[in-house]
């Protein structure tokens, strides 16, 4: 039985990135392999390349390392048993290393789609034209989770530096199924403008013979892949006419659909999700946020079931002290300015009303989150918010910061006290650009 190694997706960084992700990993293979050539932005010596799966930041990872550091030569072995939210499985270096030197590393993940705990084997080297600071690393690891792997995130160890331009990451699928023919062409059933992107639905005609699906956009030749019967074509220009082809891929080639009808992209503002409260919960969560927009906006109207007037926010379930916030508030009398730094959430993302306010009076706000999926920017928020209690009230402008390069994939809003009362609504929108 032949084994085929199929390149799924390559990322060559044109600029620095604090995180590199592979999303929507097709399920049609047996094993995965990632080949990495990377260099770091900072001035320290060798730095690990960490990885995690499915955006799982819990302490579900264990690993055993064998390391060699040259100059004086040191061989060490370490073990981490459920104490990390990642596997520190590869290595690269920064400006202390010989110019133009990039690391050489490979990550293997067998049976990534099975109902087993996921095992990894990785090896990497970083070379230096001296007897010092060359580094070799061999790591076996596990992700203590039986879910299929649908995404992989790579970050420099420490989370404060970046992969530099020229770094390359390629994801391969390995199959022990021998392809005997090209797949039949899929059939496009609908296309929808979703603000800076297009959603293309299609019917598979030959799924058992197909490794993954991709869509090709004309003009521009943007190519995206998927394993489902819907694919999103991203980075589309506004007011531009596009047609799309869906390809059913395997190692022998692709069955290609007929070109779709043309779609002209007018829409740059799209509803993602709306959550209405019923008084039974103190949190509102938006999860699995699509990554193809440019910015996000939350528009809300809210009241609490207890006293208090504040709504808090965190991103991606991150409760580390990486948030800060500043406030300018007027109440019709003296203006107020305040701040919170090194907080475990954005303490006031917006105002609301509660039981100390007049009945049926709600607070409201508009929260903007800019470049939410950037991998080289920390995330900035801006909120205009307030309430009027017919005799008192607040009007405020807030800024907020989440010090992370990670794309925002989930947002959790939490009450200061009590629950969100019935009649409260939170709507998330995506803004194209």
């Amino acid at each position, binding site marked *: 039985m032949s084994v*085929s*190694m*199929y*390149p*799924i*997706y*390559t990322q060559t960084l044109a600029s620095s990135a604090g995180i590199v992700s*592979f*999303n*929507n990993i097709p399920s049609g293979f047996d094993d995965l392999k990632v*080949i*990495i*050539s990377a260099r770091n932005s900072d001035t320290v010596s060798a730095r690990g390349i960490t990885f995690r799966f499915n955006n799982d930041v819990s302490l579900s990872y264990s690993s055993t390392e064998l390391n*060699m550091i*040259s100059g004086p*030569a*040191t*061989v060490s072995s370490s073990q981490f048993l459920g104490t990390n939210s990642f596997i520190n499985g590869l290595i690269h270096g920064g400006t202390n290393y*010989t110019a*133009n*030197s*990039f*690391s*050489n*590393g*490979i990550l293997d993940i067998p049976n990534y789609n099975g109902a087993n705990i996921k095992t990894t084997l990785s*090896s*990497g*080297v*970083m*070379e*230096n*034209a*001296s*007897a010092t600071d*060359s*580094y*070799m690393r*061999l790591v076996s690891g596990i992700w203590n989770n039986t879910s299929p792997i649908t995404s992989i995130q790579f970050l420099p160890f420490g989370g404060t530096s970046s992969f530099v331009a*020229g770094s*390359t990451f*390629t*994801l*391969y699928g390995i199959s022990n199924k021998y392809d005997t023919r090209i797949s039949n062409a899929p059939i496009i059933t609908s296309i929808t403008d979703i603000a800076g992107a297009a959603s293309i639905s299609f019917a598979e005609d030959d799924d058992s013979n197909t490794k993954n699906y*991709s869509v090709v956009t004309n003009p521009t030749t*943007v*190519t*995206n*892949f*998927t394993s489902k019967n819907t694919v999103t*074509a*991203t*980075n589309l220009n506004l007011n531009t006419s596009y047609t799309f082809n869906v390809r059913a891929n395997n*190692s022998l080639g692709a069955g290609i659909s007929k070109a779709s009808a043309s779609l002209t992209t007018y829409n740059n503002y799209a509803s993602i999700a709306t959550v209405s409260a019923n008084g039974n919960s103190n949190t509102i969560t938006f999860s699995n946020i699509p990554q193809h927009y440019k910015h996000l906006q939350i528009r809300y109207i809210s009241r609490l079931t207890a006293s208090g007037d504040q709504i808090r926010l965190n991103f991606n379930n991150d409760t580390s002290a990486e948030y800060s916030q500043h406030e300018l508030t007027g109440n019709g009398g003296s203006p107020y300015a305040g701040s919170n730094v090194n907080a475990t959430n954005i303490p006031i993302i917006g105002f609301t009303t509660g039981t100390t306010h007049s009945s049926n009076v709600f607070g409201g706000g508009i929260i903007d989150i800019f470049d939410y999926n950037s991998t080289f920017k920390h995330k900035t928020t801006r909120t205009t918010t307030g309430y009027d209690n017919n005799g008192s009230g607040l009007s405020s402008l807030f800024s907020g910061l989440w010090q992370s390069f990670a794309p925002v994939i989930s947002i959790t809003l939490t009450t200061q006290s009590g629950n969100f009362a019935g009649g409260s609504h939170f709507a998330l929108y995506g803004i194209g650009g």
Partner: protein
Amino acid sequence: MSMYPIAIYRVINNNEEPTFSNIPQNFDHLQIRVLSRCPASSVGLVAGFNSNFDAPYFRFNGDATAANYVTHNMYADGATITTNSNIQTVTAAITGVMPVNSLTANAYGISVVDILDYSKTNKFKTIKTIAGSDVNGSGIMTIRSGMWMSTAAISSIFVGGTAAGHAAGSIITIYGITTSNVTGA
């Protein structure tokens, strides 16, 4: 399919040292798989092991300038872990391991050598080798790193042995590995 055989060399006579020329430039990475044995009965220590184990070495584009090669070595023999290096002192990149001809007959070493972005002109070429040789009573397991300090695309690779080339029966295969032209997900 993303891993394509480019060329194979089967050693017929002892001491042969092949050159792979005109390496196609349309791949992204190279993998060289070496199954080899040293035709000498003992060797010096240039390979980085004891006198019973030699190593293949790679010279790129005919470059025999020692200042352009760096290698580091970490190996184990079942009892001891040893590290060493060659910093711009050897005119090639030393990779892998192969047993000498006085050890168990018909036993060969295996070396899997990965060279990423071999055709990129914005990078020095970093080499990673995982290799081993077991002769039924002793053996070596090694991981090696190396660098050819040139931004030139690799167009040829000379595969030698530090002591005496390769013994008859050795096989050296070079593969090209492609990446994907898919750009979004």
